């Protein structure tokens, strides 16, 4: 148990002294979270809406693919991607292997099915009668989609939380594609692994504690956003 205590004091020390190594890890982690989640939302949300609200051949297949993507082992994704990124491989000419851009790509591929599958399920749960009523009062397709998104906002924010959570804590694909290079593409989670492998348990615990703190802040903010509307929709308010 001494590591934990040592880790805690170490973490405190690293934070208050503004340690450059830790600052860089935090900065890289935040960049990976922001880029991968933003791209997954921009690309995945329209696909999720289409799969959730559309009625076209292949919709079920699309849902099956997205659902399968939810449980893809990150290590396998990382392995396949890194093989594809070798110099002679199809993605070789983009020079992505062992770079932060490669890590972004891996993390986007992991976050995308989360956003697609969870947002499709969320909008699918919106009462069909409400959307049909909107159409019956001349709502445009964009207005129907906006209504579905707003009605499904609890589930949509849950998808966002899951995507952010994956980017914060994922290591398998990040290590394989990024190479876990200190000062370049190392994140808080992958740095924890490196410190453990090097036998620096207190440092690993310190970085882990910082990571947990970051997760608490980010997920806390997202949860407040998610629940904000719900408090104004309490069941028993009158007048």
């Amino acid at each position: 148990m001494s590591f934990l205590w040592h880790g805690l004091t170490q973490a405190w020390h690293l934070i208050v002294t503004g340690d450059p190594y830790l600052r860089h890890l935090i900065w890289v982690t935040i960049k990976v979270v922001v880029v991968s989640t933003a791209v997954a939302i921009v690309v995945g949300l329209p696909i999720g809406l289409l799969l959730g609200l559309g009625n076209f051949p292949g919709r079920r297949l699309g849902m099956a693919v997205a659902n399968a993507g939810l449980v893809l082992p990150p290590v396998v994704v990382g392995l396949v991607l890194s093989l594809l990124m070798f110099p002679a491989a199809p993605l070789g000419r983009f020079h992505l292997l062992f770079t932060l851009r490669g890590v972004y790509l891996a993390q986007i591929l992991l976050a995308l099915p989360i956003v697609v599958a969870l947002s499709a399920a969320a909008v699918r749960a919106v009462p069909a009668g409400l959307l049909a009523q909107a159409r019956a009062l001349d709502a445009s397709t964009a207005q129907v989609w906006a209504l579905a998104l707003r009605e499904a906002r609890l589930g949509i924010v849950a998808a966002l939380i899951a995507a952010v959570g994956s980017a914060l804590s994922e290591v398998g694909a990040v290590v394989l594609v990024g190479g876990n290079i200190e000062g370049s593409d190392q994140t808080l989670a992958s740095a924890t692994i490196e410190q453990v492998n090097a036998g620096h348990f207190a440092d690993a615990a310190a970085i882990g504690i910082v990571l947990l703190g970051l997760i608490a802040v980010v997920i806390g903010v997202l949860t407040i956003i998610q629940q904000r509307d719900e408090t104004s929709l309490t069941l028993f308010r009158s007048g």
Partner: protein
Amino acid sequence: MTDRILTVDNLSVRRGRRTVLSGVTFGLTRGETVAVLGPNGAGKTTLLDAVAGIAPIAAGTITTAGRVATARQSADLARRSASKNVELALAWWGVPRHERARRAQAALDAVGAQTLGSRSSVALSGGERRRVHLARAIATRPDLLLLDEPFAGLDHEVRAGLMADTASALRGSAGSVIVVVHDRAEAWALADRLLVLLDGTVAADGPPRQLLDNPPTPQVARFLGYTGELRFPDVVLFTRPAQVVLDPAGEFVGSVRRCTPLEDGTRIEVDLPAGFLTTVTPVEAPPVGADVRMRVTGGVRFAASAVAAGSDRA
């Protein structure tokens, strides 16, 4: 030029292989309210869907002048306040932002929901949801408003209140209305005109009182509540319960087949050699099998040849 809002000409609609509507023809002038009444599966909702442009037409034409709004049967509301729900509908309809709040409040007032504006939709009762749902459609002020069973699933008391408010809201609106109803009482309360759909065709079209007093066919008579049928050599007399009175000096004798307790008395079904009669009496019901004498005070006559043999009595 007549102010025609809707012309339906020889309309047929198929769902899969089944013909749901065939040869439906009727029209609607501005300001008219028509109730569509029919048993389950008669094609009422399909008719509304066809007029709204949702159901594909197999044959015939539908011509509308102006915009059509539908309040569908399910009263699903968005998760926001009642007035915001109505304002949202006005946004869909294309009403400028600055007019929405005022029009939403006016519509909520019209359906007796003036106090519900700030309430969240999830805190509304079934009847309140129906009011907001109705306000949402009325607020758009369409040229033709289609209402699909606006009182479905409400208990008697709530329904009566909402029906009265809806009737006054509809009379106050300039547009035309087609309202699908399940219950005859709703048709009497709401409509200037009644359209009876039986088996996918228009079986009767006219003012409610006129159709009730003079149903055009035996089928319509049965559907509108003529529950007694007495066969004579050339004619069959159809009677409503109110037109049959238990009377020891009455000319008709029959034996009681079934008694059903009602709120204000008992419904008695009596078998006679020439047919059957039904009456509602406030007095204590005679036992099943007992002989009773009755007097018939009214009814409509159809030629015996027009009444199918083996009629499906109620």
